[in-house]
């Protein structure tokens, strides 16, 4: 056989199908799944260390940590009293199959809320649906006001954009208004919070938003 053959297949079809399976499974488990994405060092683990104790009274939580090498982030999560499973991968993102495998480790008592800390990377994780209920982009203000326009996909697809390290704004040379307006331009419908995971500033609003989304995802 020779000649042109129409294919019309999404490149990531396999992952998309796996993610759809995850999504049905997570719904059956009544588990809200939050995918947190950012560049390396934006403060994902620090945000989780602060956020988890604020959720702990209301929900049982567990965390999947994606990392290239170490178990350090999972250890940091366990220190605040939350179950954590580390995925080490040489990939620049987590995919739906890796997450499915990690969820198996929590099945003895599935958590109400599962938070996934994706691999630190502002581009690749955005292409891989994990079957999550909520996508969050974390961005530290010191990365620069122009980045939402340079890396629009992750910001656009996120339900929420958390701007972290607000305590560094006075030293960063970044205009918060300019950054906020660039986030709004590419992602008109995302909820946006400006916080400092270090000082705790702004975290209450973020946690309230998250809790509301958890309720919605669990169908309560």
């Amino acid at each position, binding site marked *: 056989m*020779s*000649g042109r053959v129409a294919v*019309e*297949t999404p*490149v990531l*079809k396999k992952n998309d199908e796996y993610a759809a399976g995850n999504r049905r499974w997570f719904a059956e488990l009544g588990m809200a799944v939050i995918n947190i994405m950012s560049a390396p060092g934006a403060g994902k683990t620090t945000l989780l260390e602060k956020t988890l104790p604020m959720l702990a009274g209301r929900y049982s939580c567990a965390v999947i940590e994606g990392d290239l090498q170490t178990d350090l982030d999972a250890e940091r999560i366990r220190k605040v009293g939350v179950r954590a499973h580390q995925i080490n991968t040489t990939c620049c993102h987590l995919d739906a199959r890796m997450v499915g495998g990690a969820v198996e480790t929590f099945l003895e008592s599935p958590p109400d809320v599962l938070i996934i800390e994706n691999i630190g990377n502002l581009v*690749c994780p955005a292409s891989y649906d994990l079957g999550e209920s909520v996508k969050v982009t974390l961005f530290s203000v010191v990365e620069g006001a122009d980045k939402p*326009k340079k890396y*629009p996909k992750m910001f656009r697809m996120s339900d929420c954009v958390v701007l972290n390290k607000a305590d560094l704004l006075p030293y960063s040379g970044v205009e918060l208004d300019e950054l906020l307006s660039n986030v709004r331009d590419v992602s*008109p419908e995302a909820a946006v919070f400006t916080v400092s995971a270090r000082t705790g500033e702004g975290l209450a609003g973020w946690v309230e938003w998250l809790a509301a989304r958890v309720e919605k995802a669990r169908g309560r």
Partner: protein
Amino acid sequence: MHEAGIAAEILEIAQAQSALLGGARVAEVTVRVGDMSGVAPEALEFAFEALREGEASGAVLVIKRIAVLARCETCGTDSRPGADLVLWCAVCGKPLKVLEGEELMVESIELEGDAE
């Protein structure tokens, strides 16, 4: 750099198609890559060439880049946001829906010669 993973998926889809049709050689693979897909075309080309094998070892990757096309579902206006990517309606000020420019699709393949 997820373009290596993306290229591997493209090759797998092309080879599966070829196998389905009797194992003919793949001469060309045409993909649509949106400007807002998060995939860098040059990196994808590079990875594709490095990973080609089997029936697709001589395949050429043709990348059709798709510009962002957005629609206002409130007033029906279509627009092509420029590099500034303002995804708000210039007419009525409502958020725009992106119709094109996020896709990452294998469109077609070109097969050549006869399978045995």
